[in-house]
Structure formats: C-alpha cells, structure tokens
C-alpha cells in the first residue's frame, strides 16, 4: 500500500431516507466536532426552517447551536448565510464577532462591505464592534441617510487613514466621533464643561467630575496628593475657588430663558 489514507468508512443512505433525517444526523455529528465557525452556523440555521416545524427550532436546535432565541433571529442568520463569498470569507477569518455580524445582517451591500473593512482593520472587541455598528445605524436612521454615508464622512475617513494612530487609538477616535454625532448636545455640554472647569484655575491635581451624562446632582471632586502638606495646599486652593462663587456657574443650573419658537 502506498501513501495516503488506509481506507474510509462510508455510510450510504437509501434514496427513501428523507432530508430532515439526513440533516439531523449531519448537524448532530457536526456539533460534536470542533466549534462551528460563524459561516457554518449561519448555513445550518438557514436550513432549519425548511426542514423542521417552527416549534422544534428554538428549544432544541437553536439552543444546541448556542443561539439565543430572539425575535427575528432565524431571518437574520438566514440573511447572513446569503452574503457574497467575499464577505463570508471575512467572517470565516474571524474578523467580526457574531453579535456584530447579526447587527449588520440586514444592511445594504455597500454599507456592509464598508463596515466589515473598518472592523477588520480596527481589531476591536465584540462589544465595541456592536457599539460601532449600532451607532452608525442610529445616526443614519435619525438623519435619514445611508449608513455608508456615515462611514464616508471626511472625519471618519481621516481617522481610519491616520498613519500616526495605532489600531487602538483609531478605535478610540472613531468611538468618540460616533458618540459626538449620536449625542451632539451632550458632547457640546461636555466640551463646555471642560472649558468652564479649566477657567476656574484649579490646581492641576484637582478634578471635578460631573454626574454621568450630567444627570442628577452627584458631583465628585478628585484630589491627588503626595503628603499632608500637599493635601493642605490643594484643599486651600480648591476651597478658595469654591468660595469665590465661580463654581456656581459650572455646577448650578441656570434658569432657562424661554424663547419664542423660531418659525
């Protein structure tokens, strides 16, 4: 006998054997082999509705595949399995997390290809991928634009093309830009707050931290010091800033000036 396989066990099924049984065996066997990649999973899930009763799918099959039974989940996986070869290859390479892939399952081809290329270059975690795709979707829907237009924004392009930033810095810069586009009023308040605090002339080792999203009254002051004398100095300096009344403008809400409507 030469090189190569010694032999192989073949199982031949008669013609009368139905598709459902064959697929059940195939899926069961595949589940006990090394973990399925996202494309294999999508291909299996997309076949299920044609072979099994709707009642059987969530309880038995989806749970075996470790897929949460959420509304629309079968449709999303089915759309994902129908992507073109190029995009499926990106998925097979593991460049995009399953959760993010499902989020973009229904996107138009151009937007999907654009975001896949961005996510592949950023190499960020699954939760950050989901955050990025959600932000893009929400900005696009709110503004009535195509998702691709958000990614083709010149500021987005500059970040992604930057030679000075590594992939972590690019990820952070993109997240900040998307946060600013998604929450413009909150972002401008944050910037204004930073400028106001700066103008107080507090010692460099004193930080005033607003409540998250400025909601409520739970403000914090953070001091860092190296000894008792340093602490006394910081307290004296922070105390005089607080007593001067300059903080009132930064912390206290000013009564709103009612304006007539514009139109």
């Amino acid at each position, binding site marked *: 006998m030469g090189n190569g396989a010694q032999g192989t066990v073949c199982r031949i099924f008669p013609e009368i054997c139905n598709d459902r049984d064959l697929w059940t065996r195939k899926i069961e066997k595949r589940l006990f082999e090394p973990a399925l990649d996202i494309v294999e999973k999508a291909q299996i899930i997309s076949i299920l509705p044609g072979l099994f009763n709707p009642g059987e799918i969530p309880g038995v099959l989806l749970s075996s595949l470790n897929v949460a039974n959420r509304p629309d989940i079968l449709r999303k996986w089915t759309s994902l399995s129908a992507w073109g070869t190029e995009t499926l290859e990106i998925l097979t390479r593991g460049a995009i997390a399953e959760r993010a892939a499902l989020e973009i399952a229904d996107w138009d081809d151009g937007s999907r290809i654009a975001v896949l290329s961005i996510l592949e270059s950023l190499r960020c975690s699954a939760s950050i991928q989901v955050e990025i795709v959600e932000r893009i979707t929400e900005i696009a829907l709110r503004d009535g634009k195509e998702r691709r237009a958000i990614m083709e924004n010149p500021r987005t392009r500059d970040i992604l093309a930057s030679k000075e930033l590594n992939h972590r810095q690019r990820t952070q810069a993109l997240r900040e830009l998307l946060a600013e586009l998604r*929450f413009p009023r909150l972002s401008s308040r944050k910037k204004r707050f930073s400028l106001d605090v700066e103008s107080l002339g507090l010692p460099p080792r004193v930080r005033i931290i607003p409540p*998250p*999203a400025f909601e*409520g*009254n739970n403000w914090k002051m953070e001091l860092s010091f190296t000894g008792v004398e340093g602490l006394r100095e910081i307290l004296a300096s922070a105390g005089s800033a607080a007593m001067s009344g300059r903080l009132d403008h930064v912390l206290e809400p000013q009564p709103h000036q009612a304006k007539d409507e514009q139109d």
Partner: protein
Amino acid sequence: MKLPVPERVIVESAVAEGALAATLRKNLPSASFEIVDAIPDANTCDPKVLEVVRFRGKLLKSCPGTRNYHCCGYRILHFGVQCSLGCSYCILQAYLNQPNLRVFGNLDEIFGELSENLARDPHSLYRIGTGEFSDSLLLDPLTELSRLLVPYFAKASNAVLELKTKTNFIENLEGLDHGGHTIVAWSLNSSDIRKKEEPFAATIAERLEAARLCARRGYFLAFHFDPIIDYPGWQSGYGRTLDRLFATVDPARIVWISLGAFRFMPELKEIMRRRHPASRIAYGEFIPGLDGKMRYFRDIRAEFYSFMIDRIRRADPDLCAYLCMESSDIWKESLGFFPDERGGLGHMLDLAVEKKMNICPRSYTPS
C-alpha cells in the same frame, strides 16, 4: 376615531355572571362569548379578542415613582390591562405575556377595595386614576365602567377620579351625577407626533372638542403632555397644540397640566424598532436615567419644559403645571422652584384640587 369591536370575548367562569360580563353581552351582540376556568398568558396578540378575568392582585396601587425623581403620589385603580391604540412609544408593548385587551370582571371587589381604602384615612385626599395600564375610556362604550365610577366618586368626599384618555369616547359621561369629583384628562401631543406615533388615537382636534363638551357638562379637566418628543420643529408643534388648547377650553376648568419628556425602559427600544420600523423617536439623545429608564439628556428636557411652562403661564399664570418624574435640578431650571419648597408635589396637586374643585378632606368630619 374608531371603536375597537372585539369579535370574541373570553370570560373566566368566576366573573361570567357579573355585571361587567352582562354589559359586554348587551353591547357586543354579534361577538362570541366563551367561558373558561382561567385565561392563560398568551404569546401573541389577537386584536379581535377581549379577555374578562377575575384579577386577584392589588386593585388600588400607588403610582410607581422612584427615589430620584419627584412623583405626583397619584393612586391607580387597576381595572384592566392593554390598549389597542398602538402608540409607538407605549410601555404596554413590553407586557409580552398579556398582549390582549383585558378587563377585570370582579367589579364588586374593585369597589370594595376602593371603599376600604378611602375609609381608612378620611382626612387625606385620594387622587385616583384608571389610565396607567390602559386607556381610561377606550373600552368605555363597551364596558360602561364610567357610569359606575363617576357616581361612586361623586359621593366620595375625600377622593377625585381622573379618567385619562387619548380617545373622544365621552358619550357615557353625559348626564352622570359627577358631583364635581371627576377630572376628565387628555394626553396631548403635537399634531406631527400624533400623526406619526399615535395614528389610531383621536386627533388633537377631536380630543379638544371632547374636552370642551366635558367642560360644558361641568366636568373638571386636566391635560398631560406626555411623552414630549424631540424633533425638528418641536417648539412650533407643541406651541400650536397649547394655543389650540387655550383657544378651546377655559383655563379655569383645568385642574392641572403635566409635562413629561419621553422616557422608556431600555427593552422597549428593540420592541419599537421591530413593531414600528418607521418611527425615529428611539434615536433621540437618550441617556440612562437614575431610575434605569432611558431619558433625554437633561438640557433637552429643561428646554422642553421651560418653553411649555412659559406658554402655559402666558395663558394662565396661576394654572397648576407640574413635571412628571423629574429631578429637583430640572424643576429649578424650568419652573424656578422645586416641589419640596412647596410641601412636595403631592401637596401641590392636593392644593390644586382644593382651589379648583373645592374639595378639601382636611376639613371633613366623618358622620
């Protein structure tokens, strides 16, 4: 607007012989009635079904306020669940295990619990409403519940009833002895939002016309601008509704106007996205609030309220206007004070009842 007419009424046997079931049979002659021991929870909504159950929980509840935001201290008379108006922002969509219209047939127990509570503290004012888990008047043409509630409250010296609705189903209120103890209240919005997000509710014109008729019948009125929604041109939209309100209704009949910016449990976002794909309201600048709900960023809320309060004060500087579930800093910024400076929000509303409706249980001596 169109009345929902169920084709199938499922009644639990414990309430099958009750007054509510009898009224429904009278008003729904072509519907099929089916008696069952117990109605199980359902997964999908059947708009043709009305369920009549014996509710076994607490029938009079406190408004589910939270620690960080001022609550009105209103009490909820729980008479049913769900609503078929299908407003895109409605929290009832998240009640996934009870998707069908459901009313409680154990009326004797509802009124029994009510009387027991009112007798417990005759010197306290009970502000009671039915519009928390359903629309107060949506099914009224079928249930005629208002014909029982309004005369009941007319005799309750320490309580007022607030019926909150987005309908114009006020026929049953005509000719009732309300004794000046019932407030008929409408949820209002800008016409743009009404068209897009509340398409099956009465139009703003229909609601205001119904309010005008109720005022003519001697009822007191209230209005709730809740949810206020951010969109381009909101000032003009909400300003116009306020103008129409004050052009239609004498502010002297209005006991209070509440304002509440759109807020929602985070899980509602996905439900809205699925059930109302054309709606854009979930994509506003929402941040997690201190009660776990998503709320507009505070500056946006303060701007809404300041604008609305200014317009309300121009119409009537003494009209009681309040914020629903808002923090002290937003109150201060929008109204110039916060409720604790005036004895708390509950006290402010009690005073509004005393002043406008002349109801003051503190001075009441039980016989």
